[in-house]
């Protein structure tokens, strides 16, 4: 089995941490993993991507032709990640907006969610997730990365199980932070449970748009 994941977001959102958690959990479940992290010029605020490749791969670069899963921690960055492949299996998208200064500097506003969806979201199964609210509920806005991992687990599209992720969280976060991240994971998983029920109940067309 092979599985390629691209994590995308803005520097400072915990993308590398998320990549590490996913990779270590996949390793614990007995799979071969490689991960690529490119450290660009800016410590915070620039586009950041991390690629995780599970399976018998040699190099960290995902082929442009297809990616199984995009996890986006920011709206525009999710679409940017989707756009960089010809085919994306599933995209999980935190609906949080972080304004690129390239917009405000020219008196422009962040594009509307619906407009972005219409223009860039066609042909990919996208799950918009209000991960920011769940992270706050868990105790810290910084926990969006773990909420999104929970969502992926809950949707059963992750080639690993929750126990492996929990093990890695315990290994990664100390004391109070562990509690916040465990809660974030649970909320993400629960969100997916609810989503699956909804999809089951709604028409096929709507389900695909979700």
């Amino acid at each position, binding site marked *: 089995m092979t599985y390629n994941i691209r994590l995308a977001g803005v520097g400072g959102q915990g993308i590398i941490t998320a990549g590490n958690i996913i990779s270590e959990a996949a390793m614990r479940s007995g799979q071969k993993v490689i991960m690529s992290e490119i450290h660009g010029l*800016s410590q915070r605020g620039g586009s950041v991507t991390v690629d995780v490749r599970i399976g018998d791969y040699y190099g960290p670069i995902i082929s442009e032709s297809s990616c199984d899963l995009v996890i986006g921690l920011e709206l525009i960055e999710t679409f940017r990640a989707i756009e960089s492949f010809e085919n994306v299996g599933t995209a999980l998208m935190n609906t949080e907006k972080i304004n690129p200064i390239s917009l405000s500097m020219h008196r422009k506003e962040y594009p509307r969610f619906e407009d972005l969806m219409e223009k860039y979201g066609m042909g990919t199964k996208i799950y918009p997730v209000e991960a920011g609210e769940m992270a706050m509920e868990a105790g810290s806005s910084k926990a969006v990365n773990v909420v999104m991992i929970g969502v992926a687990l809950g949707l059963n599209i992750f080639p690993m199980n929750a126990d492996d992720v929990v093990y890695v969280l315990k290994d990664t976060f100390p004391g109070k932070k562990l509690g916040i991240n465990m809660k974030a994971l649970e909320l993400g998983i629960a969100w997916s449970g609810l989503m699956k029920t909804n999809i089951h109940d709604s028409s096929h067309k709507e389900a695909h748009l979700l």
Partner: protein
Amino acid sequence: MIYMTDLIQFTESKIEKKPIFLLGNEAIARGAVEAGIEFASSYPGTPSSEVGNTLSLVADKLGIKFLYSVNEKVALESAFAASISGMRSLVFMKHVGLNVASDPFVSIVYTGTRGGLVIMTADDPSMFSSQNEQDNRHYADLAHIPMIEPSNPQEAKDFVKAAFEISEKYHIPVLFRTTTRVSHMRGPVNDGEIPKIKGTRKVFERDPKRFVSLPVNAIGLKKMLMEKLGEIAVESDMSFMNSTPSNMVSEIGAITSGSGYNSLMDAVTSHSIDMDILKIGFTNPLPERRISEFLRQHDKVVIVEELDPYMEEKIRAIAQINEIRTRIYGKLDGYFPLSYELNPDAVLQSLARILSIPGYIQGKSPKTESDLPPRPPVLCPGCPHRGTYYVVKRSVRMSNIKNPIYASDIGCYSLGTYEPFDEADTLISMGSSIGVANGFSMVTDQKVIAFIGDSTFYHSGIPPLINAVHNNLDMLVIIMDNGTTAMTGQQPNPGNDLDYNGKPVTGIPIENVVRGIGIGNVSVIDPYDLKASFVTINRALHQTGVSVIISRRECAIIRDRKLHKNGEIEIYTVNQDKCGKCMNCVENFSCPALFIENSEIQINPSICDGCGVCAETLVCPFNAIEVKK
């Protein structure tokens, strides 16, 4: 956070979690530790920085003497001294760092070494964080130094150990070359034993005929070096680092190395292309016998390597000397690109042309450029450089200076080249801001303003400043002192009173250095205080001769860490009743926390770091930006 896990893995083996998930650079540090290094030195540079970040966590515990040096040249010279005093030593830097260290680099290969000396250099194909994509493999030829190249973290660890063995066996330094994709690739690594090192002081045994490279000695050393290299060529032919990972079944072969190997393997396995592979890890001297054998066994051989046709030229020469008529494909005949890193898609496209595989030859239709709003790297929220650039631009405009020349340098403040600041006209190499300013001052009548960071100033900004003072030149040098080497991950520099481990060292104040050179016009500003900075910069812009302004304020990331530790950060918000919508804050100050929504300026509370600079009248004339209650 992963570092903490690794720290445990480094020092204790009680946790059963093998293999460890290591970054290529962490694996190099691990390999060096397993090889029993007693000394390590570096100047930080991406993509090599994590070797130092990792060592800094374990060096003291393990008894390794590790330090960040003022620059790469001093780092290498120190490591050389440790080596000829009998210690295994590691020195590491980014690719252009070796340019700085190249002077001693070439000559210590002549003199040779005692304790193993490995010089690690990380190239940056596709220039993710560098000014060029120079191929440092050419340094191996230039200096006649053995070179080793890993493809993944496991090899990085294993090959570093082998590099120390070779260095010690032949008393020669070894060049260990990675690329970004190897240094920044994380993968499973099986760890090995960490030897107990003695950590005792050494006694240097003198041998001036070797270590004093005056012509009288160097002339003999050159001949010995070439003989040594002949012996090492035999070693390369037998080395486990050169391998044929698959069975030999095809008439088509590929010779490859480093990251190119990974892209080739991913391309051929995913498309079931039958091809024999000769993977080279010992890339200087090349394993000539193995290569000529491999060439004879195949009708066609493809050379898959990144950047320059380094191996290809040599392999074509090997074929010519040995009268082998195998058809060789590579970069010289246009099948592979001469620029940028290889990826599986690019390799597949080249293979398709060579092997006439239909369907892939054209490659995919070129992607249309995305019209999503770009998000280039930016100065962090709270970054002191934002205040400096903002106020310099204002001062220059207010002083009615036409055509100023902004000579910039390497560091976070390089981002001042972007909108809205646009305050960089040149940016070449470490320290070049002041060097270039020397020339501009001599040949133009324009006002020359040089921007340089504290770490870069210590690294190579001092000699050009001496040159400027000595020659009575005119320039304003703005030293942006954030107290750290920020861009590579907050490593310490000679301005600090504490080293990476919190041990006291002697901080060297920049003002002492510049006053010592004889510069009288020296002022210090706080870039969080725009008004006072504005007054000082205005005054300096009207001075003649060399003026220095030290713009001093702690790096925002370090400040944030402290504030988070000590409690809540005070953040700011826009009072919409007061906001005059002049848009100055978003257009000209452009902190990433500021944005426009429903035609109102807002501050993103999760991004604001509470520096409060946007609230100053010089940014917000309506005083509409207030502390959030």
